[in-house]
């Protein structure tokens, strides 16, 4: 193979888009390494601290699409203190110096400043797609810079970011010459936008396929926009709360009827039940529906809507839907692949009208179900066993029983056997979150059967170190392990240290690990960063027992070739 001209080798590599495959071929020989690195177009960095940005840019100067993730997943639930890190600046700066051909940037859980956005906007002449998910640190001024300078912008997708709203000016910064927008999502912007500017922008964007508005956009503006976008495939509505006049309804319905390509619907901010009939014309063609921001829709409103959605593949809904609403889903949505049921109350032991019965009904009616996130009031082993048998195709199974440590609602037993059935039947399971009363047995099942598992989330579970050790031994494909409030200590942490090199990261908070154990880990495994995160005001809650050694409140361990990071705040100790 080394006698082939490089162009031929490069051409062969072009059939290998997957990063894993490209990493593999680059190890074969120096020539292949060179050919591969210069032709690499997509780079995905799962942990921004695993490698230095300069090194990535040096190796892949011709990268077109860069994707970087920052904070650990539990940051979503306020478990990572602010100022922990995950700064986008160094990545954007390095790319601006070393790969000016960059066209797409995706960032998740990172801190992005306005200055960085401005640098981004001005540094890459071919830039066309910015996707920010769960990021923070920027304002609408940064968006104004993107709008003003990215002449070829096709995609601006802002998902659930914390954005400082400095006024509606940013949307007017898209020049009149900008006609390339295909996807615009500003649902997370809290404030008003200029309706006229929005309408004009939509009017000059013939390629617009995906548009997600924010809460401030009125029904009338929405109707006007929809009359201009007959090819729209994905819509996030604006405000549907107002008890608007019949004319507004009718205009919206007429406008929606024009959107024959519409497949996905979201928004519904605090939607009023009166708006539900407006949506009927498009229900039958929908494959995706997100109603998780509509707490004022009751079960009957939701079922009226969903009973028309025969093609639905993805449904996100609040638990207001209740078990009987889920039964309607089960009998209507035969193609359902992904279901998320979110809680509408956030009490620790809050009431939820959703129980194991709803999920069993779904499993009976929707055998194609492969991805689940389910918050509920209670669960039983019998239900889980039934669900596992009915839906062997689960790749993602996340169950959250609202009350930590709650046992089987019928037998009062731990839910070990139920989750055991899930991991046994679902051979393709890649992601699992467990909850309820669980002993070390569940981890025995997981270690024994969950061979494809890549990500495991544990909370308030287990009896002893053996639990965690079952997982570390048995789950050969484990990449991310996150644990909170479980009795795993130094023995578990140090039971299989070589494993951490095969994983992206480990998170442990409110467990029984000590600083001594962390130091041992750090000294045995120099290619890991062992971050001990101790916040001052938490120290009073730390248990004095456990051999008199202070327990580590939060621990984050990840493999890295970058060494200890230099941007860590005071409360983070890198061992």
């Amino acid at each position, binding site marked *: 193979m080394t006698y082939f001209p490089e162009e031929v080798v490069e051409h062969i590599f072009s059939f290998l888009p997957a990063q894993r495959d490209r990493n593999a071929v680059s190890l074969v020989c120096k020539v292949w390494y060179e050919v591969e690195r210069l032709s690499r177009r997509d780079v995905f960095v799962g942990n921004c601290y695993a490698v230095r940005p300069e090194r990535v840019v040096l190796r892949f100067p011709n990268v077109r699409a860069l994707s970087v993730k920052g904070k650990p997943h539990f940051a979503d639930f306020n478990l990572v203190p602010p100022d922990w890190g995950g700064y986008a600046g160094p990545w954007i700066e390095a790319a601006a110096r070393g790969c000016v051909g960059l066209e797409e940037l995706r960032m998740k859980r990172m801190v992005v400043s306005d200055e960085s956005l401005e640098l981004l906007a001005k540094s890459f002449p071919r830039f066309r797609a910015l996707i920010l998910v769960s990021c923070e640190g920027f304002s609408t001024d940064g968006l104004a810079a993107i709008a003003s300078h990215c002449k070829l912008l096709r995609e601006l997708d802002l998902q659930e970011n914390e954005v400082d709203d400095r006024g509606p000016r940013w949307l007017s910064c898209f020049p009149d010459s900008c006609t390339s927008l295909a996807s615009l999502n500003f649902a997370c912007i809290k404030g008003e936008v200029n309706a006229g500017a929005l309408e004009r922008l939509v009017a000059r964007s013939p390629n617009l396929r995906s548009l997600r508005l924010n809460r401030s956009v009125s029904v009338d503006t929405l109707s006007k926009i929809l009359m201009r976008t007959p090819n729209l495939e994905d819509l996030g509505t604006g405000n549907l709360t107002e*008890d608007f006049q019949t004319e507004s309804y009718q205009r919206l319905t007429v406008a929606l009827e024009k959107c024959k390509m519409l497949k996905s619907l979201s928004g519904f901010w605090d939607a009023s039940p009166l708006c539900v009939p407006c949506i009927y014309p498009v229900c039958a063609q929908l494959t995706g529906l997100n109603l998780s921001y509509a707490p*004022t829709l009751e079960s009957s409103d939701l079922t009226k809507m969903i009973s028309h959605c025969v093609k639905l593949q993805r449904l996100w809904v*609040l638990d207001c839907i209740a078990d009987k609403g889920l039964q309607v889903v089960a009998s209507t949505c035969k193609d359902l692949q992904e279901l998320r049921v979110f809680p509408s109350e*956030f009490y620790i032991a*809050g*009431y939820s009208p959703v129980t194991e019965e709803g999920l069993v009904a779904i499993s009976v009616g929707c055998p194609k179900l492969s991805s689940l996130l389910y918050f509920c009031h209670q669960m039983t082993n019998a239900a889980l066993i039934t669900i596992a048998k009915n839906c062997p195709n689960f790749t993602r199974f996340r169950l959250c029983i609202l009350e930590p*440590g709650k046992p089987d609602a019928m037998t009062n037993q731990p839910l070990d056997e139920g989750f055991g059935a899930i991991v046994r039947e679902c051979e393709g399971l890649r992601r699992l979150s467990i909850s309820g009363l669980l002993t070390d047995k569940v981890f025995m099942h997981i270690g024994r059967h969950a061979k494809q598992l890549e990500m495991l989330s544990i909370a308030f579970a287990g009896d002893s170190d053996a639990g965690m050790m079952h997982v570390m031994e048995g789950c050969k494909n484990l990449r991310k392990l996150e644990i909170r409030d479980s009795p795993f200590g130094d023995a578990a942490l140090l039971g299989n240290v070589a494993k951490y090199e095969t994983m992206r990261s480990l998170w442990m908070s409110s467990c029984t690990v000590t600083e001594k154990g962390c130091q041992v880990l750090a000294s045995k495994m120099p290619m890991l960063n062992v971050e001990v995160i101790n916040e001052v005001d938490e120290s009073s809650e730390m248990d004095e027992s456990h051999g008199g050694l202070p327990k580590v409140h939060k621990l984050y361990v990840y493999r890295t070739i970058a060494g200890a990071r230099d941007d860590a705040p005071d409360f983070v100790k890198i061992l």
Partner: protein
Amino acid sequence: MSAETERSSTESCPASGLDFEDTALTLTLRLPGSSSSSAADADRKRGASSSTSPAAHQSPSLAAAGAPPAPKAQVVGWPPVRSFHKNALAAKFVKVAVDGAPYLRKVNLHDYAGYDHLIRALQDKFCSHFTIRRFGNDETKLVDAVNGTEYVPTYEDKDGDWMLVGDVPWKMFVEACQRVRLMKNSEAVNLAPRAAR
């Protein structure tokens, strides 16, 4: 376990003894603790007293529980829901009265991005023949185009005082406001004068 529970509306003013009958669109939820604190803080504040938790929502398992309630109340980050999602569901419904109108309305202050948005919504809700008139000194009034009556938007704050809408930053207003009243101009002269700008 699948029976739906009647949901009563949230207390907007615990001390006032207002009763909480509902419009058809009842408020169904709020974050635990005070109205706009973060979920984490609210969890810490809640403690053993569950005055914020309507009786109808007592979890049956709590009643039978062997587990102590106090530690649960302080659990940060549980249930595992993104703050974005929690904040998006936060609702602060307040009653809106218009002098002379026979019924009240309820609005969710979190729906609105600022005063302009709110005033326009009030205009939509009550009377499409209200026009908004803005004055040089930042005052905003709603004027009934039919009979020329001027209405001044006012609100009752947490101290029970009636204030002019628009003086304080929007977020502060959302936090403090308990109810809104569109007061006839003739009555509004009794309110404290605005602070000089």
